[in-house]
């Protein structure tokens, strides 16, 4: 019977974490169903040996045995965490054992920007039509996006959503987003692409063909999001349902030329993605 009759709620076990780009993923073993869980309260502190379980360190309350600590930004961050179980009667467990995890550093921090559209900050609010203007997409961007870095303005020139052929609101067609940028010279070393999304379609985020100066480089496959980024633009708001994702990959120096370069994303598969930022970065020390 699903009723908690014990007066003590046990702390969860199996707490573990994985450091990723701009986020840390925590998982633990859920309570058995005999304990009716109201929520798990996750507490965390940055750059400390332990975390005080108090309101100021409460990161989230979740019903899942899983928490993605988002919005950490591009720099590597070290955090420590503990989890408290709260049952249906409002009783709280002792804090779980502690776990320490470090997030990965982004090329948007380690590198030098060659061309950047938007800010790598978990928000897409700086883009055109954000946060909920998808109904104006067809009228505003009938031919997709053609954006010249250094000249065009993000707030009017780059759409917050890049639709795909599955999107009836965008004409059930493919959509090309092009970024133009100048380089004084061919890069001496490989560079890095950073593509951060605040959200994407949950079940059919699809993929896009990445092309640099006419050379097809890769097909980028997107992670499923929460299908909420078409109406909400800030994944850092507490309780935000958005599911950001992050793509970073090297680009060979030989793809680039002195003068104007073009980087294209051709969305010919699935539904939309919602931008956080996109940029090309030279590697530090080179």
């Amino acid at each position, binding site marked *: *019977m*699903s*009723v*908690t*009759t014990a*007066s*003590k*709620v046990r702390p969860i076990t199996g707490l573990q974490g994985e450091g990723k780009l701009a986020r840390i993923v925590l998982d633990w073993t*859920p309570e058995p*169903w005999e304990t*009716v*869980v*109201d*929520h798990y309260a996750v507490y965390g502190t940055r750059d400390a040996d332990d975390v005080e379980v108090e309101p100021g360190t409460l990161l989230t*309350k*979740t*019903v*899942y*045995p*899983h928490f993605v600590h988002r919005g950490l930004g591009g720099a590597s961050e070290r955090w420590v965490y503990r989890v408290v179980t*709260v*049952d*249906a*009667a*409002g*009783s*709280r*467990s*002792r804090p779980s054992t502690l776990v320490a995890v470090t997030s990965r550093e982004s090329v948007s921090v380690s590198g030098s920007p060659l061309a950047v559209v938007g800010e790598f900050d978990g928000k897409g609010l700086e883009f055109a039509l954000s946060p909920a203007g998808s109904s104006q997409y067809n009228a505003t961007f009938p031919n997709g996006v053609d954006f010249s870095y250094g000249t065009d303005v993000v707030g009017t020139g780059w759409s917050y959503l890049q639709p795909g052929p599955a999107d009836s609101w965008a004409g059930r067609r493919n959509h090309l987003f092009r970024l133009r940028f100048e380089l004084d010279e061919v890069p001496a070393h490989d560079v890095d692409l950073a593509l951060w999304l605040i959200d994407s379609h*949950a*079940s059919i985020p699809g993929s896009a063909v990445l092309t640099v100066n006419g050379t097809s480089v890769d097909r980028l496959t997107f992670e*499923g*999001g*929460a*299908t*909420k980024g078409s109406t909400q633009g800030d994944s850092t708001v*507490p*309780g*935000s*349902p958005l*599911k950001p994702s992050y793509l970073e990959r090297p680009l060979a120096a030989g793809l680039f030329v002195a003068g104007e370069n073009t980087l294209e994303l051709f969305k010919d598969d699935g539904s939309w993605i919602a931008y956080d930022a996109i940029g090309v970065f030279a590697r530090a020390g080179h």
Partner: protein
Amino acid sequence: MAQRRERPMLDRRTFLQLSGVSSAAVALGISAPEAFADERTPVPEGAFGLGVASGEPGPRSVVLWTRLAPEPLAPDGHGGMPRRPVPVQWEMSTDESFRRVVRRGTAVASPELSHAVHPQVDGLQPGREYFYRFKAGRETSPVGRTKTLPARGELASSFSFATASCQAWYHGHFSAYRHMAAEELDAVFFVGDYIYEYGITSANLWRAGASVTPEHAVDIETLEQFRLRYSLFKSDPHLQAAHALAPWVVTWDDHEVQNNYGADGSRYGVSPEHFVHLRAVGYRAFYENLPLSLSTMPDGPDTALYRRFDVGSLARFNILDTRQYRDAPPADAGDQYDEQRTILGHEQEQWLYDGMIGSPATWNVLVNGVTVSAITEDRTDQWDGYPAARQRLIGAMQQTGNPVVLTGDIHRHVAAELKADFADPSSETVGVELICTSIASDGDGAPTDGYTPDWIQHPYVKLYDGRRGYVHCRMTPDELTSEFKIVSWIRADADAPLETVARFVTPAGSPGLEKQG
């Protein structure tokens, strides 16, 4: 963490050990040991702020419900109650002034169930009106009216009920319930979307004069958030009045957990392994906040919600669960038309057919979440996404007396005839589907809208109206009269008058919709 106990109150272990009442019944707010009933437990003023309700009527029984919540909108979901069990006395009378009390008892309101109680009252007379109330500490609840069903096998001369669905509190006032509370009803059937899980912000808070605190601004996920959401919706006085009018029989649709979910499948990227935890708290809060019997108490992420009620031999109501067991959305057309595809799950499907075919009832009713009628192929959340299952259902209906489907979900009034072959409108009509519009979801609405052509393109669709309201039905051994009621506005206030936009008669033995007037 040690529980706080205040002498001379009985502690949990003591009352669980007392004989005569099972510990489960005590813990689940059904009953209480005699000794505990006499406890003088202080209860905060205004403890019945969420009203009273009854449900699950039988010929000799009914379930009563209340949830103690002196501060219904306390952010922790516990309604401002202290974290300890409290005895709640109930009494049932044949008169509104409680001079002829026929049953009384005590249930334990415990923090495990957010101080909700669900006492089942037995030994009542069939087909009879009763009044009930609760007492806790010095607090007395409002009086509720309820009614038992006719005796088994009795052919009642009539049975009147309303159907309602989709009550997005934030989209407008519950004017429809204000009018429903003035009806003479034997029961209310609620067909899903009692709450919505969405964050309530300035973008969707259309109910003039209402405001909410920041706790309500996020999509709900934890049990405390689900409890708070029920409290917010149930704080509406017109909803409380409708609950106090007649026994309710409820089922859910998707928004009691998450938009368009099915089984363990989320449409918002939550893995099945994680999604069951959301389902568990959603189902738990549903049970806690509605007049349901112990058999519908969730066990982890699972709830046995489908069940049936016999109104003597006049009608049989099959209450369906179209969410918990459904197959995932179709991947392609081949998947959509797969013969094995099911929306009810094969076990519930067989249970339904067993109860329909050979039923002794004149009317055989399905209380159902989503539209059965064929509308468009891309409406895959409805039975349109499960065409083989629909055809099996139609086949069962052809062997059943006077099938009637009661549906919600679409926020529109629709009346349709169910065809043996929807592709051939001239084929036999096997039953009728009466879809009630929303109580509040989508705000004021209008008689027609952008979706109208999808529906009225079919000759078997006899009515479409996009305003708010409910459906009133009266069954007799000879006919079913359905009236589609609307209010023209809900955003500004709750003052809109009631109008009847269509009235249909369905003769027994001749399924179909005969429009009146």
